[in-house]
């Protein structure tokens, strides 16, 4: 890694990977972990030793054997923020699968005579500019919007953080190549990319749109992940683990990833909302989802010019979008907290 030369410890880590590695690593773990655990406000007294090192650390410290994952899960279940967000997400999944469970009309049933009318019995959210029922469309829009938002975010987050993380960790030529590739991707204007890549697709499903978002979205997460990994791997516990001979994959997965993931989660949860909106932009360019798809983004865009006359047509789909984003931001926060040993 010519750009960021390893500290001397790193060089040793590269050479020694013997049978004593586990023990050594757990030594390092307990050394590193105790002060942190003690500093954590919520540490229930005593050296629990559930750090980023997981089972080894806990085993060495003599506590119950729990993995980082199970530990985080235990934390999560007790976190009200997590529970609320999980409930909202479950509800969104439910209406995405069975929208007709809570609606009684078709979202494509529109009567222009009722255009922009406000709330009335049986139509609590009023009508949009085409005279379609806003409530029905908001419920039906969930399927497309949640699918696009979640899948695009997951795709972007996974692809971006894997590539960015590896680039940040290994540095060198790989990093240079990847970083320059991201530069090129940043240069592609969304409008141009959409018109070129999506106009040739004839599929009427959401997948080309999601694929397109992943293609143009990963460079950003990749940069964030790279920056985060570069910082985290300077930390003492990483150096220590390296010095004690931890393998690269172990370093990345056990030590770096849990500590570097926070910015990725933050960016991804907000990006979720912007992807749902981006879907509408693409549809408006005539290259996104083909009519008569119902989605929040499309309804929000359609209602935007009429904000002065019929704000309700904008309010409800926007509100649904806001709640979805809120749920995922809360989920992200809870997951991040659960992964952070310093908060225990």
């Amino acid at each position, binding site marked *: 890694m010519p750009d960021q030369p390893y500290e001397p410890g790193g060089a040793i880590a590269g050479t020694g990977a013997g049978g004593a590695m586990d023990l050594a690593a757990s030594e390092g773990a307990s050394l590193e972990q105790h002060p*942190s655990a003690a500093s954590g406000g919520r540490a229930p007294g005593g050296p629990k030793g559930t750090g980023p090192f997981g089972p080894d650390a806990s085993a060495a410290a003599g506590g119950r054997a729990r993995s980082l994952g199970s530990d985080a899960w235990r934390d999560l279940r007790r976190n009200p923020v997590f529970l609320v967000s999980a409930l909202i997400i479950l509800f969104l999944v439910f209406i995405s699968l069975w929208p007709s469970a809570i609606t009684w009309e078709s979202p494509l049933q529109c009567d222009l005579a009722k255009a922009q009318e406000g709330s009335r019995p049986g139509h609590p959210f009023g009508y949009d500019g085409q005279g379609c029922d806003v409530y029905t469309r908001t419920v039906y829009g969930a399927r497309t919007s949640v699918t696009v938002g979640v899948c695009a975010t997951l795709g972007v987050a996974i692809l971006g953080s894997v590539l960015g993380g590896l680039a940040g960790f290994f540095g060198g030529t790989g990093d240079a190549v990847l970083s320059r590739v991201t*530069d090129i991707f940043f240069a592609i*204007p969304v409008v141009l990319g959409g018109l070129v890549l999506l106009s040739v697709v004839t599929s009427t499903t959401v997948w080309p749109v999601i694929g397109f978002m992943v293609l143009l979205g990963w460079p950003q997460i990749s*940069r*964030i992940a790279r*920056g985060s990994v*570069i910082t985290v791997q300077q930390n003492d516990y990483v150096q220590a683990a390296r010095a004690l001979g931890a393998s690269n994959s172990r370093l990345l997965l056990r030590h770096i990833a849990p500590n570097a993931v926070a910015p990725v989660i933050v960016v991804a949860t907000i990006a979720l909302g912007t992807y749902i909106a981006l879907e509408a932009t693409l549809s408006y360019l005539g290259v996104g989802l083909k009519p008569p798809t119902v989605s929040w983004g499309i309804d*929000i865009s359609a209602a935007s010019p009429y*904000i002065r006359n019929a704000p309700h047509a904008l309010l409800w789909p926007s509100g649904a979008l806001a709640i979805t984003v809120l749920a995922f931001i809360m989920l992200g926060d809870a997951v991040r907290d659960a992964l952070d040993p310093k908060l225990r």
Partner: protein
Amino acid sequence: MGRYVIRRLLQMIPVFIGATLLIFLMVNVMGDPVAGLCGDRQCDPATAAQLKKEFGLDRPVWQQYLTYMGNVFTGDFGTAFNGQPVTELMATAFPVTIRLTIVAILFEIVIGITLGVVTGLRRGRPVDTGVLLVTLVVISVPTFVTGLLLQLLLGVEWGWIKPSVSSAATFDELIVPGLVLASVSLAYVTRLTRTSIAENKRSDYVRTAIAKGLPRHRVITRHLLRNSLIPVVTFIGTDIGALMGGAIVTERIFNIHGVGFQLYQGILRQNTQTVVGFVTVLVLVFLVANLLVDLLYAVLDPRIRYA
């Protein structure tokens, strides 16, 4: 350090060639632009052929690309369909856009980081929840609507600003557009800072600093903030492109004749010369921005060193 910068600058050459080639091909794939020039009617074939010849569209793509690149190195970026040289378009659009971007980034830095620090230090308090709600509004209401409402309110109802920006586009005119443009990014910056601050405020060096008896604001700015800024700086680095090239909506609302509009127009009219010219300059901006971000890493975290 010096060698590192030189190496990075040399890397710009392949990126430059790759990006221009990619964009060139993409605009070409969109098809024949001449059909769009005659309005809603069939272009008469002779004029269409003549126009194609003039824009060099009758030759194979690789030949077009080589000719274009050859011209670029002599400073000739070609001509837009309305007969204006692309360099002239760039000379009017880029200064405006750069000013707008500066305003937006200043907002991101000042408001975003301040809110991030405040919410990060007071997690779960009302101020944190309030900022979260504003964040949600900003994400879920399109820029078009926020921009339009601000324009109506400040420009028409209260008369504080002019609803549209004049062609001079001075900094003071760009304050409201800059805020609108920065709004979504503000949400990112705030939450990134908040998370970093919340994470780092329990770290050893902060406790040490507090234990040493340093004043609170000094601990926050010197120790806490500095170590929390890396993700934020990274984000702002990646955001410059979106701010410069993708400000179409903001530019339209406030009638700013900047890069976003020219690029959008060029793409819709499939004008290779305009699009490739503008994107080329944008690529250079990204490269420099990313280099600066990487150098800032070393400034913010002294443990990161570049050879």
